[in-house]
């Protein structure tokens, strides 16, 4: 295998990992910029993945799965909001609780429904309509029915069916996040809520409303990320499949100093590390076989720590992050 080929395949698998990180990271940017510590990204990804694969299986439409996943994650976002905004609880504790809930609930319900140890059934068997998964916006099957001639041109077929549209959506989301945060009134106020909530209160707006809006958006984005994980990237849910990607996304947010584009770079970097891991893990020749595969499994996580510790410099979090807003008396 020559170098170019290796590079291409690494790039391809980087692109496969990154959207999960990006959706979760943008969710993290929204939450944290509004002052909510969102350690529950991990749990929400898992819930999103489970709900999406399950609903897609029953309904037969990947998009329905994704919408359901968004809804479910929003509900868990509100739960976090209720604990941290309304009842002024500790953000980390509430987030951890969501993560624990997610691990337990998905596995238990999954096993109760499908009796496969928590796995969901494979989407899209031999008699697939092509609508079950989120890979192509319009399934190839549909195009082939309309224009059978396309089968001789797989590249064109891929393009017209918008194969990998969620990957495109991930990058569009980064731009959208930046635009909303930096170019709109909503974004300006959201950033102030995370920095100087009193200023929002004295300006006559509601800190609570903006924080709930933030956890809602974060929930929706986690839902899409989870759906990508189980319904686009792979064709079923397996317990624990989020594999700490939510935490990595949070690390990417810090790496990017709470800015969308910089956080995206962090996601690409971490996604690349995963791609390298997969590559090395599968290596079947040379000196690499001498190294235990656990080392490669751990490598991206170790490198994340190194990157965060060494190259980020002083990252300044939004000032009011993790702090409940209470009107002062005098």
């Amino acid at each position: 295998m020559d170098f170019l080929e290796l590079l291409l395949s690494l790039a391809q698998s980087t692109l496969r990992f990154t959207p999960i990180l990006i959706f979760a990271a943008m969710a993290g940017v929204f939450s944290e910029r509004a002052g909510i510590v969102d350690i529950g990204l991990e749990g929400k990804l898992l819930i999103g993945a489970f709900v999406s694969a399950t609903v897609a299986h029953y309904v037969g439409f990947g998009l329905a799965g994704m919408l359901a996943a968004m809804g479910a994650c929003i509900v868990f976002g509100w739960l976090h909001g209720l604990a941290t905004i309304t009842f002024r609880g500790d953000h980390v504790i509430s987030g951890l609780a969501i993560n624990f809930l997610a691990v337990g609930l998905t596995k238990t319900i999954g096993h109760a429904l499908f009796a496969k140890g928590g796995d969901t059934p494979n989407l899209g068997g031999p008699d697939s309509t092509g609508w079950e998964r989120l890979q192509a916006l319009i399934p190839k099957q549909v195009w082939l029915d309309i224009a059978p001639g396309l089968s001789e041109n797989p590249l064109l077929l891929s393009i017209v069916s918008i194969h990998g549209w969620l990957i495109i959506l991930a990058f569009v989301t980064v731009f959208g996040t930046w635009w909303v945060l930096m170019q709109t009134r909503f974004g300006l106020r959201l950033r102030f809520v995370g920095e100087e909530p009193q200023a929002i209160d004295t300006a006559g707006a509601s800190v609570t409303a903006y924080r709930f809006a933030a956890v809602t958006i974060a929930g929706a984005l986690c839902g899409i990320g989870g759906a990508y994980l189980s319904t686009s990237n792979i064709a079923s849910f397996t317990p624990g499949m989020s594999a700490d990607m939510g935490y990595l996304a949070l690390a990417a947010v810090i790496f990017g100093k709470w800015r969308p584009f910089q956080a995206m770079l962090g996601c690409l970097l971490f996604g690349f590390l995963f791609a390298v891991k997969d590559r090395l893990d599968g290596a079947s020749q040379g000196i690499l076989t001498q190294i235990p595969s656990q080392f490669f499994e751990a490598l991206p996580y170790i490198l994340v720590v190194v990157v965060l510790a060494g190259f980020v410099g002083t990252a300044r979090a939004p000032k009011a992050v993790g702090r409940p807003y209470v009107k002062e008396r005098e």
Partner: protein
Amino acid sequence: MTNLAIELNSISKSFGPVQANKDIDLAVETGTIHGIVGENGAGKSTLMSILYGFYVPDEGSINVFGEPLEFNSSQKAIEAGIGMVHQHFMLGEPFTVLENIILGAEGGFLLGGAMSKARKALLDLSERYGLSVDPDAVIGTLPVGVQQRVEILKALYRGAKVLILDEPTGVLTPQEADALFDILRSLKEQGTTILLITHKLHEIMDVTDRVSVIRRGEMVGHRETAATSPEELAELMVGRKVLLEVDKAPAQPKDVALSVRNLDYVDERGIQRLSNVSFDVKAGEILGVAGVSGNGQAYLLEVLSGMHTATGGAITINGEPLASTPDTVRGQSIGHVPEDRQHMGLVTSFPAWESGILGFQASALYCNGGAMKTKAIKDAMGALMEKFDVRPPNPLLGTAKFSGGNQQKIVLAREIDKAPDVLLVGQPTRGVDIGAIEFIHRQIIAMRDAGAAILLVSVELEEVLSLSDRVVAMFDGFCSPDRITAETDERSLGLLMAGEFERTTSEGMAA
């Protein structure tokens, strides 16, 4: 009825059992500067927060320019033309001036248009009132005085015709305060009505037209400023005669207790903070250090108390060289009342009995090997709080729950109780109300009369002049020659504070 900008009718507000405002009436004429004075905790800020829609009063009504004001919404107050500059600024530090100003008045979903409109409006306002600010500067990089200007501009941008300023000079240097008063006067000339809340009487006398006095939640008097005096206002504030002059016998100085020679301090960033500072403090006298805040006084106290190590020169305590850590310095019988009691003097989240032994936690009085003698500490603190008139004298109460003056009394009680040979005192009455100021001053004089050498650092010129026996001024890290306080006055001290003295570095170079 003349043209009233603000009219409060029988406003009352309680927080649980605490009656913060009781049956308050207030009338403010359009185009005047109206002062509201009262001790800390008298209910001034609560009243203004009600006016600004932050709190809903239990009873009463408010008219703004003759129109009744709806409560519970800052938005309504803003629409009625009220703007507020809070004591603690409500500015986002990483945001630009422009972003801070348009917040809440963006004018549309997209920011682009609003920004350029605001930029123009901001330039207009700056020109009209002489409030120059760079719209693209990031708040966190601006000095406090300029940040305050941004707060004022923010209110004006929202069309404020009535401006409320809550303790605006608490965070300002004297020059910045003067600049602020110039701005207020020019705002008044252009027809803006100003409500100035403060506990500093000289500010009231300087800029206001009328003044209302609030005491324990009640209005106790309205006066024309020209027809009243600081003494009368002070009496109204506390409800009894207070001594603005400090009664003290002539000092009986003895041997030199604290001696500083050619002291240099360069901080970790390489900035020269103290240059060739020399002075002596004798047992039984108070040496005052005057100066505009930020001219090295803070570093002087921190070096003398062992928090930083001098980079040059010599410090001796009763002839011995100064120890090197705060802990060992205390062992040399040095007490330290830090400038910033909230961060350096106390742990505000601890109860008073714990805050009351900070620095002495390892002493055999309070600690038995590794275990704290909690009962003994609480008893000792209870007695000490009674003795120093800390209100309430409850050692179990959280430190943050005490008012500024009472917190300061806790720090003083802790330091004075150990009867140190040398007492370092920084800003003893900053943010402290008049009743407590008097008490604190008497304690410091009593320490002197008991034979302690006292170094008093204060930015309040009156305080330095009335307490100290000799006085020096600091400028840019240099220390002036000393003056006998009784033979000097504010003017000649002011010249020293402005750096009008011969300054030479430790290397003998002229600065």
